[in-house]
Every structure is written in C-alpha cells, then in structure tokens.
C-alpha cells in the first residue's frame, strides 16, 4: 500500500455508477424474453438468464466498490507519481515527474454530486489516471505536479 488513499466517497459514487452501467447485464435476459414471446425459446431460458444477471448485478453493486476502493492507493513525491490498484491483478505504475507533459482534471455528473474529480496526467506516449479525488485536493495536486514539472522540464 502506498501513502495516500482515494476519497471514501468513491464507494457510493462507484456504486451508483455500477448500478447504472450494470443494467446492461439484463440485455440477454430481455432478448431471450423477446424470443420467448415470438415462441422461439422456452420461458425457462429467459428466467435462468435473468437470475444469473441478478446475482452478478447484486455482487457487483454491493461488494465491488468497497473492494476496489480498498485496493487503490497512490503517492506523489518529487520523484514521480506512483499508483497501485487491482483486485486480482495488482498493478503498480510509476511515472517520473519530468516525463509529464500535461495534467488535467475532469468530473462527470455522478462525481460532481459526490464532490469528486479525476486527475489525469499525460506523458509523451500515454496517460494515467487517479480516480475519485476530492475536488480541492485534485486541484491542489494538479498545481503541485505542474509546478514540479516546470522545475525539471526536459524535452521529449
């Protein structure tokens, strides 16, 4: 675990996100039910798929946000930004400060209602994100990183 954790509000925010996007899990069941009305498949198929979907949906919405939050940590110091995340695959990434090209923050409607925002920093090749930081903190972090980058700026 690294020094900093993301904001605990991430848990309800993610729960809401998963609850919305998890609705797609019910599409196969709906489709099978549609086929049943056309008398192509038996009703049992649709019910079975719906039950599986409900179980997965319940698991995702109840356990996943908490689990994901507890596995996310990061650390920003004068050398670089470190991120550690993942439940089955634990990933650890480090980006040196002097490779960072630009930093931005963004906020969707769900994050806004929980006072969270995402900070993203890009190097010459790709970009990395820390999700769900408190708005003020992400602004501060952005300024801090930008200042540090200014001090050690190198060319690509």
């Amino acid at each position: 675990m690294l020094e900093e954790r993301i904001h605990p509000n991430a848990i309800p925010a993610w729960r809401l996100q998963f609850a919305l996007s998890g609705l797609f899990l019910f599409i196969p069941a709906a489709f099978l039910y549609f086929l049943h009305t056309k008398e192509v498949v038996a009703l049992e198929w649709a019910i079975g798929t719906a039950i599986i979907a409900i179980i997965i949906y319940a698991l995702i919405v109840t356990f996943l946000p908490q689990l994901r939050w507890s596995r996310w940590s990061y650390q920003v110091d004068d050398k670089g930004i470190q991120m550690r995340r993942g439940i089955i695959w634990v990933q650890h990434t480090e980006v040196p400060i002097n490779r960072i090209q630009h930093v931005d923050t963004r906020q969707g409607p769900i994050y806004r209602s929980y006072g969270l925002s995402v900070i993203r920093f890009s190097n010459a090749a790709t970009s990395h994100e820390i999700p769900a930081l408190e708005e003020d903190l992400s602004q501060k972090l952005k300024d801090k990183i930008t200042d540090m980058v200014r001090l050690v700026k190198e060319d690509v």
Partner: protein
Amino acid sequence: MFEFQRLHWVVSITGVLQVIKQNVLTLVFLFIVGSRNESSYLIWFVGVGLISAFGLGIMGWFRFKYQLLEDEIHIHKGIFVQKKLYIHKNRVQVTEISAGIIQRIFGLVSLTIQTAGGGSERAVLSALDAETARTIVDVLNPKNAEESDINSELSQEEQQKSALPDQGEHSHTKLTSPLNHEPHTNHNSEWTLSNKRLLYLALTSGEFGIIATILGTILGQLSDFITDENIQWIVDRIPVIQQPGLFFVLFSVVSVIMVSYLLSILSSIVRYYGFTIRKVGKELHISRGLLERIQTTVPYHRIQAISSTEGLLRQPFGLESLSIISAGHQQGQQQRSLMLAPLIYGHEREAFFQQFFEGWELASGVNPQNRQALKQAPSDFFSRLDESTVLPQNMFPHITESPHQMYAIAPKKAFLRYLRRPNYLWLFPALVGLYWLPWLVWMTLLSIPATLYGWTAYKDTELGVSSEHLYIRYRALARKHIWIPKVRLQSIGNSQHIFQKGKKLYHVRFGVVSGSHELSVRVKDFSSDAIHELMKWFRK
C-alpha cells in the same frame, strides 16, 4: 530563402498518380463491373475521375507554398481549406529525403519532416531540388539548437558523448556559449551493408509468410478462375499426373510459397540495397533503397531506444537486425521503427555500439560466464557482477553511486510457469472443443513445441541496468533485445496476479515513446527482490 516558394510542378503529376494509387481498388472494381455491362457510361465515369484528379493535382501544387525562416519552416497547403503548418527546429524528430522514380527523372527529391505526436504533424515537401532539401535539413538541424551548444568547447570526442540522451538531463541548465561552428561533413564512422549480407537478409526475411497469406487470399478470390476445365487444361499439359485433384492443390500451394518467397526477396533487396549509416556530428544519416533512394537523418538526442531482433531464421546463424525507436510520427507506415543495421552478427554488436553509440552501456548483454554465476547464486537478487568476479550473495550491497552494472535473469521458481504458459494457448481451445470433436485429443502433441518454446523463453529472459541504461532481452517468437536510456523511460510498472503471489513473482512493464504511441516492453515473472531494486534504480 525567406519568401514563400512553390514546389516543382512535377508534383501535380505525382499527385495524380497518388490519387490513382489510392483508388486502385475502386478502379479495379469499376473495371470488373464495367466489363459485364457494355455501356460506355463507365468510361465517362473513369474519364471524369481522371480529369478531376488531374485538376486537383494542379490546384494542390498551386496552393502548396513553403517558407524557410531562420529556424523554422512555414507550410501553407490545402485546396479548399487552407492549412498552415509551422514547424520549429526544436520540434523536429526525424527528417527523411527520398527520391522515387518520377522524382529521379527530374532530378528532384522528396523531403519528409517528422515531429512527435499524433495527428497530421508531418510535413512532406514532395518535389524539391536536392540542394534546397539539404538546405532545409541543415536549417532544421538540431545541432544548431541551443540545447546542444553546451559542450561546444569540448573536444570532438566529448561532443559526441554529449549528443547522447544523457545530455537531456542537463538541458534545463541553460549555458550560454559561443555558436557551434563544427562542420557537419566530417564523416567519423560509416557502416555499409555488403551485397553478400543483403542476399542473406533477403533470403532470411520473415516476410514471405505475410505475402503468402495475401497471395493465398487473392487466389481464394479467384475461385471463378479455378474451374474444372482450367484444371484439366493444366493437367493435360503435364502428363505425369495420376490424381489431378491432389496435384492441383499441391501445385497451387507450392507455387504460392515459391512466388511469395521470390517477392519477399525482391522487396528486401529493393528496400535495403546500398544500406549505409554514417555518423555526422550529432546526427545519424541513414541511406538505403534501390529504386527509391531514401536518406534519413536522426539526431542522436531524439533516439528513444535501440532494439534488436533475432528472427527465427536468423538466430541459428547468429544474425540479427538493429533498429531505432524514435518519437517521429510515421502515419500510415506499419513499420514504426527505423532500421539501423538490417543484418549484423551478434558478436559484432558491441563494436557497432562502440562506433555509433559510444556511451550506451550493456551492448553485449549478460555474458555467459555471468549468467552461470547468476544461476548459481542462492537468491534471485539483482546481482552486481563485474567482468570476471562474482561476489558472494551477502556482499551484494544496495545500489550506490558506482557505475557498476547489475543483471537479473528469470528466477528458478519461475521455470515451471515459463514452461506452462505457452501451453495454455492450445489447452483451453482444445478443452472446449473436445466435447464436440474428440479427435482434438491429438492436440496434446502441441505440448511438445509449446513447452520447448517456454523453455527457450525462460533461458532468453534477462534484464540489466547500468547507471544510465536499461537492457532487456526477451522472446516473443523471435528473440528480442532492447536498450533504453534511463531518461527516455516514460513509465515503469509491475503487476502481480493472484497466482503469482505465493511465489512472490511479478511481471514488469517499461514504457517508451514510439511514434505517437507508447511501446510497452514486458518481461515476465521476476522475483520481488529484483523488482524492488529495479524500482529503486528508477527513482534514483
């Protein structure tokens, strides 16, 4: 030099050819469709298309203007929407001068200026006389840029060192120094691909597989042509055949392979004929090509990494090819790296690095002696090994300021994982398919080549760090090596799967810029101690 200029008018013709080349499939389609109905309507259609292409070519030429300023080039182009492209020399990654057949007739060249990043940040001046092109390249040359002036008072040798990427570390300490008057024509070193090597290269290029696939697909499309009558026609002319069906299949397979092999040999020769690289001051000049001469200029401080590939056909002979990874954006080219030495013996590599990349460490990788020592070391620590001495394990101190090199190989506890991994590729499909197709049991025979592959992958995986460079060797079908200067590493990461946890093994990933993307180099199953030391090295 300081006003807007147009390109040579030949551009309008090459432009038309370009349009035709891009639409060749449409044209072929139109002709096939047209040959079936006999109206003259199609000819009109193609005619109008050609005329408008010609018109667009001329207008494109008319609207394309460039202006060379003291340290930047301005380009205005676009027929309906005018685009203005300003490129400053500090942003130029790679410049390329090439001369195609049409351009050669008129004694012209085409100049491509590549900058970093995606989008259309690439400027092509497709018809210039050779002299103007050279002038532009000289103006956009980074050797006049302020950041490389730091060491202008040092000796020649020191200057080349400063051109290496470690110089980037100091670039923010801006020193004011007199202008650099070094002439750019002093040819320090040169390396050429001999004709004998070109032949080896052509014979062993792995391309024929790709061409064979393409040819096979085309042949499949020609099923109209492959009728019983046609087969009979061929069979009648070759009297020995007993079984026409079997013969035909064999015949077509063999001929596809032969033709594609020949094509691949030809294409390699056309591309790499007369390959020469030359070190000129702070740049590398690479020239190659038979029909189209291409001359590429890469400033040393734009080189992101160097990689080497030992193809399956080449490794038995100890041959490999070296290429440069740069941030230069080459849109539409599948090959994103720049060839540095198309064919070179592994044992020549160290001398080659000495000649062109003085200061790049770990050129020869881990020598067999050190490897043996690493294998026998009781722990999977990153081992610091000098040329000959092997320190006992408890004397491996943590990384200090000394410039020593350190190596690690895949640890013993990862051996079985390496052997198993390639087997999953056939195992899972086989298990799924077994239910319906019982003969898939024979797929277990695939475990022999897969395990052998895993074994070689285990043997080939190694990693080394020095004060300024990272060296990785791994196998992805072909055996690959990559050298990355520490200052060019964009990110570093490790990941651990739940099944690796018990053995304390990690995968490691290194990110480096290649074109507009990130090239991720991965090595699998390294011990946590090695990872720990590696992260420390990276943060230092």
